[in-house]
């Protein structure tokens, strides 16, 4: 057998071709009904599921916050016991940081990446499905524990010794630890998928200086996750061992170290903060310019700053530990790094301001959400910069000032961009526009409510109110501030409710969108709304950063990008593999069929963790065995994927 048996010159089509579209639809469409539901590997289906699941957790976390703000609205209230309050604030943190903020961005990126890149799917479609199913299982695992009163109760960063068995005898921390390890698997495989997709699946001609900023954001976050997630998974595993088999990693009395937990947790924790904001900043960098009718100012600097922020983000973890008595040389180094990181992380803000300044803004709801990020990011960034200074941190750590900071960062640079992104991409997801009138009400209620609710927290923190107190005495000087905070947070919640109502209403009877309702420049707007299962009839060829704006920008090479003419690839589920930097086609990839292997693997992996949680070792072993069998079946070399010596169907 010679090499030529495995080669093919891909056909090129230069016109819209209905017969071809019909053929591709048959090849790529997921089976309807329950079978398709569990076996689909379509990135769009998976992306939407990610987004919906993440929003469900956002609502759950929001209800927990509402209960806490009810308790704190006046001094001396005891509606919640200290134990209940502990579980509420811990579960609230876990939910928002791990089950909402990361996954919602994975959802948008899953849906959008192949469309932005001009690809038929993600590089590893089955791994993509696995990532979602494990996320769902881990979320249910953690919330099932919470429902039975065994939610985490030591804060989301779960410090020892309070999390050790001696001081926390219940199973709460065990469920948290195991659930977080399970969730870590989901994040890791998802991140690997994004990085490989970036390196191999870009449309011909889309060299790395032509990808949208959202791609840079998610890529950077994913690369960081690959290196950071093992730290937290290991920390939780060691803690579980300390609690269940008597090891001594964090046991100070026998020579272990409580500080080891803090190091491992924050070596992960700080990169994670950037992982849950950089893709959202990418959304703003791509969405905002569409509404000021010009390209983003400083594309290259913004892309480089994204990467630089992440690199520096690995060297600042100790600023979460300034008050632990570390040597001053260590404090100086990490303080300097924490102040320097303000430079690359603020580049985006200046780029957005310059883009608005030199453009002609169209005041849509999406624009208002994107633009508001500038204000919220500056407030959250400045409070972060302040606490990067050691003496300031000593004064403010563990006060409501920090609570204000984290909420300005996570709501300001995650929730606001995500809601803006929903207004922006909802027409692509559903084929329908969201209601602009309700959108205004939505924006202003959220924006005003958020600032009324969270800005006063800075002041209560400066006045000395510690975080995580379940109630407080009268006359400390925080009464009014707390009442205002509670009122503001309820106004914010109403704003989120308006958003959900708008989504529901627009999904049912929003006006029809068409392919490119915003007249936007990137490839996802070149296909129909919603996109067909195969994304593009022919693979686009890209000659500039703004394929759909080339007529007016005149910045392309040669005769410009092609979206209606290009590679056909209709010999089964196929995609084009391209070189990592220049995106020159170098292989025709065979893509997998729909498969049950991912959902089964998620269930068997979860079985392992259920077995460990209840000390049912036989169940854990059974789960491991089933997982092994599933993986072997999954990886069995397939002729259809071109993995065995028989030529794949060559047509």
């Amino acid at each position, binding site marked *: *057998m010679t*090499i030529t048996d*495995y*080669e*093919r*010159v891909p056909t*090129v089509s230069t016109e819209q071709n209905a017969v071809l579209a019909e053929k591709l639809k048959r090849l790529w469409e997921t089976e309807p009904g329950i079978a398709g539901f569990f076996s689909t590997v379509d990135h769009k289906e998976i992306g939407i599921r990610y987004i919906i699941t993440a929003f469900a957790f956002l609502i759950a976390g929001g209800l927990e916050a509402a209960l806490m703000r009810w308790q704190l609205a006046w001094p001396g209230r005891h509606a919640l016991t200290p134990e209940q309050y502990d579980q509420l604030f811990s579960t609230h943190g876990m939910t928002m940081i791990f089950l909402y903020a990361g996954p919602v961005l994975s959802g948008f990126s899953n849906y959008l990446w192949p469309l932005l890149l001009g690809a038929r799917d993600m*590089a*590893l479609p089955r*791994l993509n499905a696995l990532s979602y199913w494990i996320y769902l299982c881990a979320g249910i695992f953690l919330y099932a524990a919470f429902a039975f009163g065994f939610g985490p109760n030591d804060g989301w960063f779960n410090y020892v010794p309070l999390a050790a068995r001696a001081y926390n005898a219940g199973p709460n921390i065990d469920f948290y630890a195991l659930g977080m390890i399970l969730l870590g698997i989901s994040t*890791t495989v998802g*991140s*690997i*998928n994004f*990085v*490989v997709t970036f*390196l*191999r699946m870009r449309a*011909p001609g889309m060299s790395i200086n032509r990808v949208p900023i959202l791609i840079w954001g998610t890529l950077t976050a994913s690369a960081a996750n*690959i*290196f950071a*997630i*093992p*730290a937290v998974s*290991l920390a939780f595993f*060691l803690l579980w061992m300390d609690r269940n*088999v008597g*090891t*001594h*990693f964090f*046991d100070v009395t*026998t*020579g*272990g170290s409580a500080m*080891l937990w803090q190091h*491992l947790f924050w070596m992960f924790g700080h990169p994670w903060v950037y992982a849950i904001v950089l893709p959202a900043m990418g959304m703003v960098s791509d969405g905002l310019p569409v509404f000021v009718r010009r390209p983003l100012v400083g594309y290259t600097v913004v892309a480089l700053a994204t990467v630089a922020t992440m690199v520096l983000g690995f060297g600042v973890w100790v600023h979460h530990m300034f008050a632990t008595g570390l040597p001053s040389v260590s404090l100086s180094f990490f303080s300097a790094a924490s102040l320097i990181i303000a430079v690359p992380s603020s580049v985006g803000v200046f780029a957005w301001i310059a883009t608005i300044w030199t453009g002609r803004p169209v005041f849509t709801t999406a624009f208002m959400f994107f633009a508001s990020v500038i204000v919220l990011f500056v407030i959250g960034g400045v409070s972060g910069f302040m606490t990067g200074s050691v003496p300031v941190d000593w004064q403010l750590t563990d006060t409501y000032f920090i609570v204000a900071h984290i909420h300005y960062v996570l709501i300001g640079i995650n929730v606001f961009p995500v809601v803006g992104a929903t207004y922006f991409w909802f027409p692509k997801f559903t084929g329908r526009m969201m209601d602009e009138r309700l959108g205004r009400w939505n924006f202003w209620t959220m924006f005003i409510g958020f600032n009324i609710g969270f800005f006063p927290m800075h002041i209560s923190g400066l006045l000395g109110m510690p975080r995580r107190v379940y109630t407080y005495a009268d006359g400390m000087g925080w009464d009014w501030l707390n009442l205002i905070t509670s009122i503001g947070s309820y106004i914010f919640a109403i704003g989120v409710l308006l958003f959900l109502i708008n989504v529901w209403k627009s999904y049912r009877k929003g006006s029809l969108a068409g392919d490119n309702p915003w007249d936007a420049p990137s490839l996802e707007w070149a296909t129909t709304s919603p996109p067909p299962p195969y994304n593009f009839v022919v693979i686009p*060829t*890209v*000659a500039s950063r703004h394929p759909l704006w080339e007529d007016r920008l005149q910045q392309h*090479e040669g*005769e410009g*990008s*092609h979206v209606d003419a290009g590679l056909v690839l209709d010999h089964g589920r*196929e995609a*084009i*593999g391209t070189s990592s930097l220049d995106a020159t*086609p*170098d*292989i*025709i*990839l*065979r893509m997998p069929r729909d498969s049950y292997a991912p959902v089964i693997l998620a269930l068997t992996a979860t079985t392992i963790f259920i077995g460990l949680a209840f000390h049912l070792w036989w169940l854990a072993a059974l789960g491991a065995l089933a997982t092994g069998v599933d993986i072997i079946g999954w*990886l069995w*070399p397939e002729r259809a994927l*071109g*993995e*065995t*010596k028989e*030529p*794949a169907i060559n047509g």
Partner: protein
Amino acid sequence: MADRLPIETALPVGAIDTRATGWWAMIFVVFTEAALFAYLLFSYYYLAVQPHAPLTFPEGGLPDLKLAVPNTIILLLSSGAVAWAQLNIEKNDKRHLVWGLGIAAVLGMIFLVVQYFEWAAKPFALASTPYSSLYFTVTGFHMAHVVVGVIMLWMLFAWSAMGYFNRVRYAHIHIGALYWHFVDAVWIAVFFTFYITPYLGLRT
């Protein structure tokens, strides 16, 4: 760019050499696994240099190298056998591909058996001290990787024996080999940490 649109050169179809998607995925699996071991070894060094760490670090005095050194060589030879298997399939020599994988898998299993005796000879248990916890956890993590690797090598052995691969289509072999070379390489770091650094004067 667009002038390149009509592609006239033939492109390979399927999972071929380092253009196979799975090969790229395995690179990043190795990165994340390497990070995991880096954090494990960080934990060791961090606890070892604590001023309040017990004086017995390592527990039971300097570690015995009688089994550990030969076992390290066995694991490295196993990597060599996989490399030889890779060379063979590139020459379309399917028989020696199968042999190489089989030898590598058997060497991997010998490593596990020797590790068992190494563990059994230790005068301490997992829950004795921070050192013992670290020792069994880190080497245990590595052994778990060897177990996965050995199962993988036997699967590759079976698939090769079934004649699935030839000199063009052998992505599975390359991808599996990447993992196995990593498992062997990371042992060097584990071995150096637990068996060599005490002789260099780190906390004995």
